């Protein structure tokens, strides 16, 4: 990693040059909510003026740039009673601007799942390799809990990371590409003051978290609480609408669908991002549904996120961005569900069962 400092003005000129010459996406204000607050999304940008550098959070994560909601895996051509499969891993290069540390951590988790497992995904790899990521730090929102998940800082998985130290950005340059892009622009060696500012900034961010969730020991709690009544309690609220998974930066579950071309001379195999909360997620041939109840489906989403599945090395895949909690119409959010779970367990341990006495 190489560290430099760039004035905000020069940085804007750098971004402007970058986005004018590349297919780029950055935070833009798309709406104003009924609460008067702006709503941001990562959208195409053609100049630095279009980018809201001081945005709060994007409504949807940046996941779709790596795992599109609909992805063509292959095309089959039928001819003379035979068929040929055509597969393409093409991904045009793009630039993503303004990802938060939790967002970049989410991409790193997806790397583990998509690239480091038994069956690496060439589709994912093509997109990941061709995406230039510029991260930016921010002061947490009242409901951000990435600090609890230890995802509030990031030290890899990006090309360039910018920490706001007042009139300048403190740059962490993590790729030769980023370094050579910056050659044309005025960047300085960090001074002693700059370093102090960076430490202050980090301290400030760390101390600004208002939402804390105790996640240590959670995998064990979840194992023990598999049959807890809280799953039905929260499940009864769940609309099974899949919004949580659609906005989540790490939900990667999908379904595969094959479709004929309209002329029946070929077909496509498509990957659709799905959600374990959708009613037929665990439905199999013959119409049998292994998780017909809302509570069971909700439980599995929490297990995947906070206990971890073998497919992702049993690691917790939640990064604490709370996009799911914000987007959920039924007001189901990780903080309340997890606190509910632990509360039940801990009160039970205190009030009902005692440790066996030494005899």
């Amino acid at each position: 990693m190489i560290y430099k400092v760039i004035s905000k003005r020069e940085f804007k000129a750098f971004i402007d040059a970058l986005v004018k010459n590349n297919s780029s996406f950055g935070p833009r204000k798309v709406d104003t909510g009924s609460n008067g607050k702006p709503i941001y999304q990562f959208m195409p940008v053609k100049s630095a003026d279009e980018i809201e550098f001081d945005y709060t959070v994007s409504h949807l994560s940046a996941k779709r740039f790596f795992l599109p909601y609909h992805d063509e895996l292959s095309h089959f051509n039928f001819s003379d009673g035979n068929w040929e499969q055509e597969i393409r891993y093409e991904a045009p290069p793009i630039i993503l601007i303004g990802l938060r540390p939790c967002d970049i951590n989410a991409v790193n988790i997806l790397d583990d799942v998509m690239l480091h497992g038994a069956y690496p995904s060439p589709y994912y790899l093509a997109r990941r390799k061709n995406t230039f990521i510029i991260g930016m730090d921010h002061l947490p929102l009242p409901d951000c809990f990435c600090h609890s998940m230890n995802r509030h800082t990031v030290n890899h998985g990006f090309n360039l990371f910018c920490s706001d130290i007042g009139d300048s950005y403190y740059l962490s340059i993590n790729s030769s590409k980023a370094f050579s892009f910056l050659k044309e622009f005025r960047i300085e060696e960090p001074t002693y003051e700059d370093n102090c500012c960076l430490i202050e900034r980090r301290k400030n961010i760390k101390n600004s978290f208002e939402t804390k969730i105790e996640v240590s020991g959670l995998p064990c709690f979840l194992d023990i609480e598999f049959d807890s009544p809280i799953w039905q309690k929260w499940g009864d609220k769940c609309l099974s609408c899949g919004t949580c998974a659609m906005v989540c930066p790490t939900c990667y579950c999908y379904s595969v669908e094959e479709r004929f071309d309209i002329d029946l001379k070929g077909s496509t195999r498509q990957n659709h991002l799905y959600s374990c909360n959708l009613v037929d997620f665990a439905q199999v041939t013959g119409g049998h549904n292994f998780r017909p109840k809302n509570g069971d489906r909700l439980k599995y989403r929490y297990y995947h996120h906070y206990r971890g599945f073998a497919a992702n090395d049993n690691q917790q895949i939640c990064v604490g961005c709370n996009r799911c909690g914000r987007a959920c119409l039924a007001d189901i959010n990780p903080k309340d569900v997890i606190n509910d779970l632990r509360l039940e367990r801990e009160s039970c341990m205190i009030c009902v069962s005692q440790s066996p006495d030494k005899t």
Partner: protein
Amino acid sequence: MNHLGFEMEKVKIGSFDFTCCEGCQLQLANKEFTLPDFLALLDIRNFREISSERLDDYDIALVEGSITRPDEIERIKAIRAQAKVLVAFGTCACFGGVNSLKNRIPQEEAVREVYDGKAIETRPSMKISDIVQVDLSIPGCPVSKDEVERIIIGIVTRSQVSLPTYPVCVDCKQQLNTCLFDLGEICLGPITRAGCNAVCTTGKTACLGCRGPAEELNMPAYLELIKERGLSLEDLHEKLAFYNAFEPLATDET
């Protein structure tokens, strides 16, 4: 036609309209760039909008519209007797549709308002399955041509034909839309069957549920969110009743 050793036949199809705007049938002739290939899958035996030929040897009947006249009851029974597969085609056929708005007022009043008192034989709007057995429903106002193509291909190739079971929210998020509830509106997206690509909400218009209820929907939770957000139950009731697709739920729960 031969596909990987399987013989495939064109489907003998009839398209029929009852009380409706005929917009769904028109969708059959829409999406021009795939139209020749689409029509190549069909052997059209009876379809007033595109051919004057009237043959009665169809296997699949696409039935558009709701039933609002006594003579329509006889006609739908005759179509049922002929068709091997009867498809309720579009929201009016599946649920009664917009026509059902008149079910809320005395029929004489409706006739007076629309026909200026001219003697018209009419009755409250009914969905097709109120009269005859329906084998397959393709909801939508209008139907999505993409979905119709997919289902016709499924029938021709004898592969599975199904509709999405989940709500419009999935499609809507994938279109990167701002949730209309965040803009202070009531939207039926969370309880309506997906498959429309969220066209209405993408155009910032609330979903009115033309595709009917999603499967296993959680109506109490939905009503709770309307109340929690202090939204108008009257507005909700109006939206639920718009296509008649949620009527039984609305009377049960509100």
